[in-house]
């Protein structure tokens, strides 16, 4: 740091003019915040086009994820779609097959909803034990934004569903044309076709110009760059819901259609990438969410789960959206084992990893919502640890 810019001195920035208005037509973060970026784990996949980049949860607070930091999970890279050529096709068991332009989607009555999106593979690497030393990597495949779009049921009504229709296949315009089957009941419930996130048009890496929103369900179903909805009477069993996104149990059999995301939480600070900087009053800050509805409570433990205290949820609480929780305590510098557990409106309590392993084994890759333990050391460093 530079004492010349500290009291009693008049700092440089208080003496001379800064950039005028409009110099930054579309603003970017401060040059002092260069470290707040999405990061990848190169060894995780064969190629960046089919891979993941993680949201820096340890650098964020509140419940809204800035658009530029929403995690990426692509299968053939970003489809850079020209909105003038974008088309959405609805056909199959409908009275009248339709094609919509983006402008036509924007003519329908709109809805604004705040939802979390979590990839089912989030925390997948942690099944076998503490692997990655930072919540960006252990939990960074989750984000939460406000979507603006048209309810899927409105478009299905426009095409007219034939009796006997029971399933929808949604397909993306990327070079994997990624597709998933969605039960009609969910499609007619709260699914949206969103073209905005946090007010502006979707970002290319999040599905520009339109994506599916399937509140509370696996991120893989929220088809990006949505190009086609086919109505049918049986599931397609696409590669993404048979080879992938099926949960292999210890006995060699696999669960399929494990759509809903179980209640989950993570302490984002202190955490390995956000060490505790001083003793005394210390704020534990974290994020919680559930695919089954609202998070109603989050408990925090400082001793690896022997004793729990209820944390303070601060800010908005929405159905299938993230909530922010805090637990302030007076840290005297002793080593601690920090944990959080979310409880949702259905009464589901986030389990610890051993409870999950006893039922599912360690090969199911997906749906690891086990309690995360951070080992806070006297020097403030924090490490991802497994406890027994």
């Amino acid at each position: 740091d530079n004492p010349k810019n500290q009291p009693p001195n008049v700092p440089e920035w208080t003496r001379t003019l800064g950039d005028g208005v409009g110099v930054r037509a579309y603003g970017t973060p401060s040059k002092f915040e260069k470290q707040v970026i999405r990061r990848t784990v190169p060894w995780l996949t064969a190629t960046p086009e089919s891979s993941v980049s993680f949201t820096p949860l340890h650098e964020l607070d509140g419940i809204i994820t800035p658009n530029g930091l929403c995690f990426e999970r692509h299968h053939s890279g970003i489809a850079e779609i020209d909105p003038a050529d974008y088309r959405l096709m609805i056909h199959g068991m409908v009275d009248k097959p339709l094609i919509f332009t983006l402008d036509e989607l924007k003519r329908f009555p709109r809805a604004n909803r705040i939802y979390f999106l979590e990839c089912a593979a989030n925390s997948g690497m942690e099944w076998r034990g503490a692997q990655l030393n930072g919540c960006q990597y252990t939990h960074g495949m989750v984000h939460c934004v406000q979507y603006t779009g048209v309810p899927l049921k409105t478009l299905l009504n426009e095409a007219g569903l034939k009796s006997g229709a029971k399933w929808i296949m949604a397909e993306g315009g990327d070079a994997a044309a990624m597709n998933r089957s969605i039960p009609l009941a969910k499609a007619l419930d709260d699914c949206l076709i969103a073209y905005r996130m946090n007010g502006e048009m979707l970002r290319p890496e999040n599905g520009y110009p339109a994506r599916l929103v399937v509140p509370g369900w696996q991120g893989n179903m929220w088809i990006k760059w949505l190009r086609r909805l086919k109505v049918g009477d049986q599931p397609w069993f696409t590669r993404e819901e048979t080879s992938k996104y099926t949960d292999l149990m210890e006995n060699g059999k696999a669960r399929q259609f494990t759509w809903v995301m179980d209640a989950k939480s993570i302490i984002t600070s202190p955490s390995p990438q956000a060490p505790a900087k001083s003793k005394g009053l210390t704020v534990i800050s974290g994020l919680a969410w559930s695919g089954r509805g609202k998070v109603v409570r989050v408990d925090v433990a400082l001793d690896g789960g022997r004793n729990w205290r209820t944390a303070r949820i601060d800010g908005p609480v929405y159905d299938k959206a993230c909530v922010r929780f805090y637990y302030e305590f007076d840290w005297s510098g002793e080593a601690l084992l920090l944990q959080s557990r979310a409880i949702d409106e259905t009464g589901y309590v986030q389990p610890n990893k051993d409870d999950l392993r006893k039922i599912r084994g360690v090969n199911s890759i997906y749906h690891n919502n086990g309690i995360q333990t951070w080992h806070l050391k006297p020097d403030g460093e924090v490490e991802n640890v497994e406890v027994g």
Partner: protein
Amino acid sequence: KNAPKKLGIGQMATAEQIAGWDIDVRPDGQGAPPGKGSVKQGEEIYMTRCAACHGEFGESAGRWPQLAQGKGTLASNDPVRTVGSYWARLSSLFDYVRRAMPFGDAQALNNDELYAVVAYVLNLNDIVDDKFVLSKETWEQVKMPNANGFYDDDRETTEKAFWNKRPCMDNCRGPVTITGRARAVDVTPEDKGAAAQ
């Protein structure tokens, strides 16, 4: 039906438009295009367009996905999920290759090439013999080894215990010991972030 009023927005999709995009194939084969391809023809396509990544025998080259072998490993500590060991339906393979492979040159194969290369991948997994010709007609003959390997999500029964009205708050367990440390595994990318400075 008292469905809400239609708003009349959007254009009718023509049969030709639909045909250009309607590439999905479902388990019973509905949606599979006309055409056919033999294992032998498939081998040639596979060697030129797939083997570089998936390995000559589907055993994976480098870190690209493995397509064959792995039978009998699903209950092991190191399950290998391949077309032969894990996939339950022929349609999932055909539908996927048709839309996504070869990686980076999607939808470049014609229908006959698709049938052939899919036949070859099946053959690599000993699901069909060397003479097999895949088409809509022979679709039903293909029996996937792990056809009965899946069951619908049962968490609401098998994980009923997680709906716990009174989760423990005090003295919930004995002493806690650390049994594993991420730093020991040491696979976290060098964090150019704050903590690393």
